[in-house]
């Protein structure tokens, strides 16, 4: 099943468009094609929607002469959480209600410099020359604040029976 929200589109140095590059298929990164790519795009497949129900945006970048296009997806997971019912019982269980999400990055690499343009599933777009994807990190943090763990049922404490008093003791 296709999981990525995007195809890639490469416009080559002679103006040829190579569309619908399936980034989930092994071998999509044809070196001859990448070497000639001058414009590099993320094109929504139309099969996925963002967290707010909108369609993913199209993102296009220029590839400088001598640079090669790159692609990466980054998955952000917040599914390990800790809770405990008492001091001596410690458990880490997943956030059942917090979805992992994927951000998509396209960019170019020339020498030691890599410039990324990331798109997050809330429509945020960021261009950076570091390895960090701050829109993804910020979205992860945001989701962690508005979702919560499914509580695990805890065993009921044993009920202590009320001492019964023989009513005859109160007579007379």
């Amino acid at each position, binding site marked *: 099943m296709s999981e990525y929200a995007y195809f890639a589109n490469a416009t080559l140095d002679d103006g040829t468009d190579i569309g619908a590059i399936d980034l989930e298929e092994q071998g999509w990164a044809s070196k001859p094609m990448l070497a000639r790519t001058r414009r590099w795009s993320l094109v929504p497949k139309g099969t996925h929607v963002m967290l707010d129900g909108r369609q993913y945006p199209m993102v296009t970048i220029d590839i400088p002469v001598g640079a090669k296009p790159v692609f990466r997806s980054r998955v952000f997971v917040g599914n390990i959480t800790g809770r405990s019912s008492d001091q*001596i019982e410690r458990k880490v269980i997943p956030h059942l209600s917090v979805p992992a999400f994927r951000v998509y990055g396209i960019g170019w690499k020339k020498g030691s410099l890599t410039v990324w343009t990331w798109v997050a599933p809330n429509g945020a777009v960021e261009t950076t020359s570091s*390895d960090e994807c701050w829109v993804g990190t910020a979205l992860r943090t945001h989701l962690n604040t508005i979702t919560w763990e499914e509580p695990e049922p805890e065993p009921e404490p044993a009920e202590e029976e009320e001492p019964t008093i023989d009513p005859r003791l109160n007579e007379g």
Partner: protein
Amino acid sequence: MAATVGVFVYTGTNAGTESTVQTGISFLSIDSNATDATTRQNNPVVAGTTSFEKHLRLKATVAPSVSWGNIKFWTDGTGQANVGLRAKLAVGTGGATPGTGDSTPTASAMTGDADAYSYTSGSKGTWDATASIGGLNTVSKALLLQLVPTGAATPGAWAQETLNYSYDEV
């Protein structure tokens, strides 16, 4: 096809025994990947002691189109008073499951570890810097976690913590 990457717990000698994919982990006073309430109640982490280390690796159960890696780990930066959470990142070697170079889980205080809460969104820890771990059934380096409730830990519910990680896929 996009990869499927899950959390696995490793127990036993050199943490060489792999669990099934985990939907949760428990901190216990035994070396176990069990997550049920009965096991926790029978093997509690007594205040003033350390839990058995929990050895985690990520594993690709569905192959990526090319590879996966570059794993980061972080927390929100704060925890509950007197209940420490320690982390030791990038332990052993990844690659073919179950990986190599890990140690046998113990309940002794870890060495070479750090406060897990020191890894934050602005200062992520590197769980595994390897850019290309591999394909199907490859695992990352290990992340070791250990709960450290001091003797002064307040009885009652432990404030919920969310631990985050990210990985790249190409």
